[in-house]
């Protein structure tokens, strides 16, 4: 690969050095240096490479000032959303925090079953009932259940369980619209403890009862 101008190459080398230092965890060992500053340094280093390319600078210079300003607002908003780190505040500009934390140990998941009046059961797939939400609804149910489990405050726990029940009510409603002949009367929820370190097929998953939510409002 042929490399271009020395000014670009110098900045690329600087970026590579920064990446290696981050990758080896050298910068994280500096006391009091927040991860956000390291991230910002990476953004600045990458931006400096792009701005050093004369062709990009020329294009930026030649477009009208109004269009330049409007266009520049978009990457700026993406960066603000990312660094602010709170989806609730900045949507649609959100933090890009995918697979960022090292996790280990057992994974906890949940399985849902529609319970019919005759006692028969059918697996309930939230994404099938709300295709627009896809897997996000299962993740939301999971997060609410985990949060309720770990809530110390009774009031907070009650709020979370109310949210959980309302999500289940929506699932039940959507299911019964589709299965008006054979509607569900309850949703049984199983907690799955998945031994990720020594997973040996589905039989190695520890399945325990989590809740049975009844449409009539009775919880057994």
């Amino acid at each position, binding site marked *: *690969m042929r490399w*271009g*101008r020395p000014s*670009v190459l110098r900045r*690329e080398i600087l970026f590579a050095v920064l990446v290696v230092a*981050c*990758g*080896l*965890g050298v*910068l994280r060992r500096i006391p009091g240096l927040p*991860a956000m500053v390291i*991230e910002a340094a*990476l*953004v600045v280093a990458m931006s400096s490479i792009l701005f050093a*390319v*004369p*062709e*990009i600078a020329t*294009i930026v210079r030649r*477009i009208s000032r109004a*269009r*330049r300003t*409007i*266009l520049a607002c*978009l*990457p700026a908003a*993406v960066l603000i959303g*990312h660094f602010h780190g709170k*989806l*609730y505040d900045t*949507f*649609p*500009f*959100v933090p890009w925090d*995918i*697979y*960022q*934390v*090292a996790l*280990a*140990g057992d*994974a906890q*998941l949940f*399985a*849902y079953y529609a319970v019919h009046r005759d006692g028969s059961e059918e697996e309930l797939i*939230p994404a*099938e009932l709300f295709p*627009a*939400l*896809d897997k996000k609804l*299962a*993740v*939301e149910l999971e997060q609410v259940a985990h949060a309720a489990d770990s809530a110390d405050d009774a009031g907070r726990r009650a709020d979370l369980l109310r949210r959980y029940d*309302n999500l289940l009510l*929506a699932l039940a*409603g959507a299911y019964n619209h589709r299965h008006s002949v054979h509607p569900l009367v309850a949703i049984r929820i199983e907690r799955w403890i*998945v031994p*990720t370190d020594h*997973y040996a*097929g589905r039989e190695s998953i520890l399945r325990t009862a989590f809740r049975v939510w009844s449409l009539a409002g009775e919880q057994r």
Partner: protein
Amino acid sequence: MTLHAGADARTLAFVRIWVFAIWLSRLLPDCFSCLAEFSPSLFARLGILRLIPNAAVPLLLRPGTLAGIQATLLVLLLLSLLGVRPYRVFASAAAILLTLYEGVLGGFAQGTHSDLALLFVTYVLAIVPAADAVTWGSRKGSAHPAETYAAAMIMMALLLLMTYSLVAFGRVALSSPEIFLSPTMRFYIASDILRPTRHPFLLGEWLLVHPLALWLAQVGFGLVTVFELTAPLCLIHKRWRYAWLAVMSLFHVASYLFMNVLFLSNILLFPVLLLEPRELFARRSDPAKVATTDEPGAG
């Protein structure tokens, strides 16, 4: 040569058609009004959606309102795709309603990264002259300088690439090197593959019981992070861009097959934003037309 430095009105028009077609195919089969099953109390107004008064939320979440939003969106998307005048009005209205659409989905269940790059690209299409060519009906010749089209194309490619690099910047700043040295992928694969989903691929389970394959997945995680870190360099290095496209396309396919995680709109954006038309449509017999220098700033 910088990617898209030679873009013209037709290049931008092609992206316009492609992007609005992706949205149409995404929204057409959706049952947006099904979300009315949820209690309004479950809805969180995210970010810009806070402009909607709290009292208006129950009205917004009625089946009729949601169906109306979807129907209006479909019409606006079709008009924008065709480049019907006044294009800027239709495309801007479509972009606003798409934000509302994504915000309503995110308001019930968070974790809405999958269509955001597509949404950002749509914002660009709404503010640039993307209907100067290939439109429905007659249109006067373009009155915009060539750099306007190039800037729009570069900005869309940059926004797509930023979503990758920001993920990787955060990962290395926060958790490197332990995230790559510990069996993190095992945890993520197990969580993603076993979570109830519509079209489950069970290859991830095979991966979990084969240590060598799992080790390769962990190595692949590190390799993909390197490509994510350097994503914006695709704008200025042609061969790096080719390598990036190969690795990241493979990554997206693998993450679907092994983890049930699909970023379909990103995959669909790759050919139009990270390849130039001459690369997409070049004939094998005429390689000279495809040849460009790999030197940043040589143009």
